[in-house]
């Protein structure tokens, strides 16, 4: 059976020709009647533009949001970098602040000692504490001044607050100071108010006792205890501490008391070694014997 020709082909060809004709006519109209064609196109273009508006806005908003995201990312990146930089700077400044605070504390302590050194009626030598408790059986500190600085055994060691202890060993450039709370240290002291004398000695527990107080002494809790000046290491009147507790058993010949030291031995950083009971007379003597160096 022979294959039949499609029936729509002549119609399509005709339509095509018609369409081509219309387009040519349209183009001719655009060419020769530009104003009218523009008006007409304008009327037709309005709804078409409305149709395009949606996708355009969509694409535009996507583009904008992409731009915004990108710029935010860039900004975040910059903020992050700045944050890191600021963190490093903060750490640096905190370190600096800590150093300055430490220096200020040292300066304050140094100033106190310096002021005391210039006004105290004796010649003293400033020394820094460089070690503590090298052995478990002594309460001692190591200072950075020794025989070459004029330190001798049995010299007294004080701060602006009061008595610290006594030098018991001298090396060429360092010395060992036994603290007042060590049982091996005993100095003469007296109750400031009543002028009653006794022996100040440390205990194995780390406390300080005042022994051999006269039985009739009116010593009371809170009384100040000072050095009596009878021994060669401390001049009279240096503060030792306050009476914390008074004890006298019925069978005891003497009274005794527990003393709260005026100096906190655990926080010592700088001390003064008493080199002479005579005050430094001249500037030269002062500079050679006891001027404080910068901390």
């Amino acid at each position, binding site marked *: 059976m022979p294959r039949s020709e499609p029936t729509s082909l002549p119609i399509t060809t005709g339509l095509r020709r018609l369409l081509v004709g219309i387009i040519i006519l349209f183009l001719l109209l655009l060419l020769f009647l530009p104003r009218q064609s523009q008006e007409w196109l304008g009327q037709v273009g309005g709804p078409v533009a409305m149709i395009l508006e949606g996708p355009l806005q969509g694409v535009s908003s996507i583009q904008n949001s992409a731009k915004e995201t990108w710029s935010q990312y860039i900004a975040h990146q910059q903020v992050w970098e700045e944050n890191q930089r600021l963190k490093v700077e903060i750490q640096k400044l905190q370190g600096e602040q800590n150093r300055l605070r430490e220096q200020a504390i040292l300066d304050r302590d140094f100033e106190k000692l310096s002021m005391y050194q210039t006004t105290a009626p004796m010649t003293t030598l400033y020394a820094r504490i460089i070690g*503590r408790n090298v*052995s*478990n059986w*002594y309460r001692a500190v190591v200072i950075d001044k020794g025989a070459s600085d004029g330190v001798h055994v049995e010299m007294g060691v004080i701060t602006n607050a009061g008595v610290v202890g006594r030098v018991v060993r001298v*090396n060429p450039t360092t010395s*060992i100071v036994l603290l007042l709370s060590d*049982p*091996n240290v005993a100095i003469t002291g007296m109750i400031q108010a009543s002028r009653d004398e006794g022996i100040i000695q440390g*205990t*194995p527990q780390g406390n300080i006792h005042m022994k051999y107080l006269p039985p009739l002494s009116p010593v009371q809790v809170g009384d100040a205890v000072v050095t009596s000046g009878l021994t060669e290491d401390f001049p009279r009147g240096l503060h030792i501490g306050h009476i914390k507790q008074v004890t006298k058993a019925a069978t005891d010949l003497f009274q005794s008391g527990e003393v709260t030291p005026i100096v906190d031995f655990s926080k010592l950083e700088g001390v003064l070694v008493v080199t002479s009971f005579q005050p430094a007379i001249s500037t030269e003597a002062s500079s050679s014997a006891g001027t404080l160096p910068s901390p």
Partner: protein
Amino acid sequence: MRTALQILLCVATVVAQATFSSLLSLNNVYPDLCIILACLAGFLSNEYKGLMIGLTVGLLQDLLTPGGIGVNLILKGLAGTLAGLTTHTVSTVTTGAVIIVTLVLSLGSGLASLVLAYPPLDGSDTLHIIVGVLVPQALYNSALAAGIFLAIHKVQRSFGVIHFAQRGR
């Protein structure tokens, strides 16, 4: 070179004892790093090394303590020697052996120091020192020595080292 390193170790230990021991203090009980070093030298090496390191660290410690020179020298030297002799009496030095021997040596050394360092004490003070300082300190020393001993063993194992030093038996 090895001797120089050992002297440097002794110096570092004494300096650490004078500066950092307060950081290690528990209820005002300080570890005696010097006796720990002497004992460990004995345990990980031999009695001769224990003696030499004990003498060196003891001498350095004596220079910075108020007591007479010679007390720590003798005590630490003796502790190092006795710790070294332990290696002859047990086949392998274990952590348990380190704890027991260091405890005994610390107690002995502490008692000797107590007699030499303090003026005559009454009964209650002596009891306080023994119960409050001597025994806790010996326990602390032995625990610390055992910890360091274990750490050294771990390092030795990780590096494949069998002996800390040549044993001179």
